[in-house]
């Protein structure tokens, strides 16, 4: 069955969200992955939104993490501090982020391009809740297309913390122990983080993607898992569910 990059990334991401875990998501691909997970594997995956929605029965893809869909028939309609404090208290397993640049330690830039904060070359929205979620949830995942500008040795601005400068750096900075980046899911491969060096390590390459293509699309040196595998492509069931139930209007999967 044919699929596009976005469909592939969403399907792969959804498989990491095990049943009965708690995930804070934003709009777009992360929300689609969480909805797909809920429908396919993890019926009791608990979805939270940073503006206060907790455990909704999502009738459709939210446009905003604060819109009324995010608490439609929800378990609780709370507040931003309630959700952020639940993260800070250590109850949230996963979060999903995106960004304009990412480095080998999983640090993410969603603030600006350039070297002058007062007059940036390009301004992006900034952290929003991204820095908070990357700081406070246990495991941070990313869904992002991969190219050398995006996967770069030095990002222009660390908006949200990955492993910062490497092993021990998060703890030294005062961030919660044992938290940090978990998986990066791109259009080329699935990347984890090496336990010792905290650097990106490719775990599986997508079907028909060459190792060299991944190297060419990365601005820093990648590690490779000893047991490097081929990513399991989306199943017909996953695609059917994604296309017919999760995103019937192709808001997200139409973007690829």
């Amino acid at each position, binding site marked *: 069955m044919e699929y596009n990059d976005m469909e592939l990334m969403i399907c792969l991401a959804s498989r990491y969200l095990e049943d009965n875990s708690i995930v804070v998501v*934003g*709009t*777009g691909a992360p929300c689609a992955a969480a909805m797909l997970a809920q429908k396919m594997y993890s019926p009791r995956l608990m979805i939270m939104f*940073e*503006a*206060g*929605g907790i455990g909704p029965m999502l*009738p459709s893809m939210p*446009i*905003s*993490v*604060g*819109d*009324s869909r*995010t*608490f*439609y028939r929800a378990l609780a*309609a*709370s*507040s*931003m*501090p309630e959700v*952020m404090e639940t*993260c*800070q208290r250590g109850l949230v397993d996963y979060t999903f982020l995106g960004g304009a640049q990412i480095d080998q330690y999983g*640090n993410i830039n969603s*603030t600006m391009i350039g070297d002058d*904060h*007062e*007059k*940036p*070359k*390009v*301004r*992006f*929205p*900034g*952290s*929003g*809740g*991204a*820095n*908070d979620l990357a*700081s*406070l949830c246990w495991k941070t995942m990313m869904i992002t297309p991969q190219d050398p500008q995006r996967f770069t040795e030095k990002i222009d*601005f*660390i*908006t*949200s*913390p990955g492993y*910062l400068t490497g092993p021990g*750096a*998060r703890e*030294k*900075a*005062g*961030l*919660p122990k044992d938290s940090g980046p978990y998986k990066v899911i791109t259009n080329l491969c699935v990347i984890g983080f090496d336990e010792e060096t905290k650097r990106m390590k490719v775990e599986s390459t997508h079907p028909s993607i060459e190792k060299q293509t991944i190297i060419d699309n990365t601005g820093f040196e990648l590690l490779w898992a000893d047991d490097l595998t081929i990513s399991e492509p989306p199943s017909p069931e996953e695609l059917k569910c994604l296309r017919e139930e999760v995103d019937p209007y192709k*808001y997200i999967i139409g973007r690829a």
Partner: protein
Amino acid sequence: MENFNKYTEERTVTYKPTGTGKLYTDPDAEKAREYFRDKKPRKMVEKATTVEKVVKEMISDGDYIGIGGFGANRTPVAVLHEMLRQGKKNLGLAGHTATHDFQILVAGNCINRCDAAYIVGLEARGLSKIARKAVESGTVELCEMTNASLTWRYKAAAMGLSFLPVRCMLGTDTEKFSNAVEMECPFTGAKYLAVPALYPDVGIIHVHRADVYGNCQIDGIMIADQDLARAAKRLIITTERFVPNEYIRRDPSKTIIPYYLVDAVIEVPFGGYPGNMAYEYFSDEEHLKAWLKAEKDPDEFKEFLQRHIYGVKNFNEYLDTIGGMSRLQELRIQENLIEK
């Protein structure tokens, strides 16, 4: 019995101001107490007024404002439009997921500084060209912030404090361009970031229901409004509808904002339009798209603003420009998931 006191002796610790960002408001809790004592209206008197009057009398050039809701959800749009019409200038803004609100204020050239957690974007809808330009040109100065930090800064003020310890921003450039200070826990020695209390000069919140004294109910998520309402030196409420005081007393656990926090209250039906108002109407995605599109051409955008904001007298007239009750009814049907 185990004693978990780790430190029983006096000790010295270091406070490190690691953020180079400015502090646009005074975090001093003592000064806030004095303000609240002298200026907060304790009188349970009728506070119904008009948007024109309240913007004229309660918002001054240079003020720092906090806006309720979440970008294009339960946003007090009527007050923002009036600020443009009255040409308010040099305002500061608390930008926690500021989307359509930020866009409106930039369109009117009203703000020159912002505690920026999320700006220039409209979430899944894309980025605002004029908002980007305002930041990239340096017209709007920024102190970097995050949504949680900003909500906790409101909370610090709501609690009557001058700071709160938090565990985000640490180790990042967001911290470096914030106004935070590194410190440590008196009991565990753990490292924290202290964020300064944020007492805005003016808070503006749109609610579902209020009585004329200002006792307010909000349905659905609160976002950060429970704290903004308490942190704001002056508080302006717009409400979908007035209800009798008796209605408020029927279920006192619904009162999220009691009257003594409120300086003015105005009935503005559909006052969150073109944003989403939970259980009332969905966001008008077509109109928001038209905004973003109009921004791309300066002349077209000028005309767009003239048609919808500068050329109309008030919010009801604005609603006429977007299709009036027919369009609003469509959004109500959409909000309530009614199949047509």
